């Protein structure tokens, strides 16, 4: 598992390094006549990243194939919570903070453990209401408050 990830990672970092090198070459050079423009630092770093990712690839290659103990991962709750977070983020500005936060917390609480429904309802309501009240009313901050079609 680990080895596989290292191969992918080294390839990705190599690509990032190369892209930064190309990108820095396309930057306009310095305007005030200095020998050092905005391109030099990213260029050096990009080259360093390329060298390091080659080194990582080599290191991964010479390491003996060690099979680590495989743990059981809880994919289902993770995927639900991840999706919930994504929906929360995307709907935050249209539906508003209070409603989305309440729903998000309730869904996640119940995903973590399917028990204590009433307690979950109370805690998510308190959290979203309290944060909104303290931040918007007391501290005069800005949060998207209610659905925009209201």
């Amino acid at each position, binding site marked *: 598992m680990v080895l596989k990830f290292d191969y992918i990672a080294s390839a990705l970092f190599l690509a990032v390094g190369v892209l930064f090198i190309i990108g820095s070459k396309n930057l306009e050079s310095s305007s005030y006549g200095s020998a050092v423009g905005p391109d030099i630092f990213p260029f050096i770093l990009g080259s360093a990243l390329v060298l390091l990712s080659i080194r990582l690839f080599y290191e991964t290659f010479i390491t003996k194939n060690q099979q680590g103990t495989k743990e059981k991962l809880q994919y289902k709750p993770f995927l639900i919570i991840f999706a919930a977070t994504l929906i929360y983020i995307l709907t935050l500005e249209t539906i508003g903070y209070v409603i989305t936060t309440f729903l998000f917390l309730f869904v996640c609480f119940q995903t973590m453990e399917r028990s204590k429904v009433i307690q979950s309802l109370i805690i998510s309501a308190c959290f979203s209401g309290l944060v909104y009240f303290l*931040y918007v009313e007391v501290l005069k901050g800005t949060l998207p408050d209610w659905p925009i079609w209201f």
Partner: protein
Amino acid sequence: MSTLDYLFQGFGTALIWYNILFAFVGVLIGTAVGVLPGIGPMSGVALLIPVTASITGGLPPENAATSAIILLAGVYYGAMYGGSTTSILLNTPGESSSVVTTLDGYQMAKKGRAGSALSISAIGSFVAGIITLVALIALAKPLSTVALKFGPAEYFSLMLLGLGAVSGLAGKSVTKALIMTVFGLLLGTIGIDNVSGIARFTFNVPWLYQGIEFLTIAVGLFAVGEVFKTILEKEEEDTEIAKINNLLPSKAELKESAGPIARGSILGFFVGILPGAGATLASFFSYILEKKISKTPSKFGTGTIAGVAAPESANNAASGGAMIPLLTLGIPGSGTTAILMGALMMYNVQPGPLLFEDHPQVAWGLIASMFIGNIMLLILNLPLVKVFAKIIQTPKQFLIPMIIAISIFGVYAVQVSTYDLLLLLGCGLLGYFLSKNDYPIAPLVLGLVLGPMVENNLRRALTISNGDFSVFFTRPISLVFLIITFLWLLIPFMMKRRGKDVIINIEG
């Protein structure tokens, strides 16, 4: 003005009612962060930056910076106190710098001496905190005077040393750590270049013009990443808390632990100053030292008080020592101090030698508040340790989603952008996969924070020398820094090759 005058002024700042409150909230949350396994000082501080930013919004800029840093630093050293509680009572360290404490602390708890172990670790932490503060005050002025003489070439090499040291000690593979450092530095170049005004790597996306916000990255990688890990690797643990009876240590125990506390404090302080080392290493070293010089080394591991006193003093001393390079040189030596530095920079306060001249209120206010905070922690931890032990039982069912909600609220409150929230979520995923595969995250954040300064100094040095790179090798101080950097990276590598175990720093 003399140092003492500044210090008194600092107390004037730290004793304003709201700053006392900020220090109190900071150490309280810090202790909670230390107690809760899963949230380390890094994610704790990162999570609280946006919260403090919104609370301090109504104050004038300099006061806001002072209050914010007082709270955030409180979280940092408060976590060092809190970490011992779970190590002793549960045999699960709340954060990595308390791992060693489990060896003797839990054994003591099993023998019914949990109370004395807890109180000794609180007292040790307090003594260490005060000793390091005195050293910090004594060293701050001279060090920043020296640092003021540095030119851009020296600064560049010094920052390289800081980055190299952190990479050399972080994680199992130096290559991976270096990759993370370089990647962090590269991320820092995105946005408008502040020397020439050219937009770099923005692809004409307006959101990228101001650069990638360090806060989003830090909260995403540390806090959200940690949360994802907890969800994915859910483990059922039975929390059986050892009973605490008679909190006060006996006279014999106090006498026995006086030496370890003193040695642990001094050792921890010096380890803390070194970039890259940190609280975790300091606690390891001091435990090993105590075992070496003890007359009865066989007693270690069976519940001896010295095995609790030394590492707990050392990790606290190290967290104080780590403030020295941050405040006087502007170079954070660890992930947590990098986040603190990022927080200061959000308030337009640049840590470094000029900090003590330009913003004496911030610098000395922070130092004075650390005195107050340490006293609060001692008071909080002795009688209230039972209350804190209860925090461990906070059901994960509620804690985990709330951390995500706080992260999202915090990032949105500061950035007001959905893109940043998406980046936050992406960083959470990235943080999980990276740390799972032994890619240390602290160097990335350090690179991101230090990136613009490294680049500015590099370009200034090169502009002065007309593009001649030899300037870094001909100036003696700069050369010394570069040689140290080189050795720092090379020696662990050579030792590993010879098959020796190298102690690495897991915490940031």
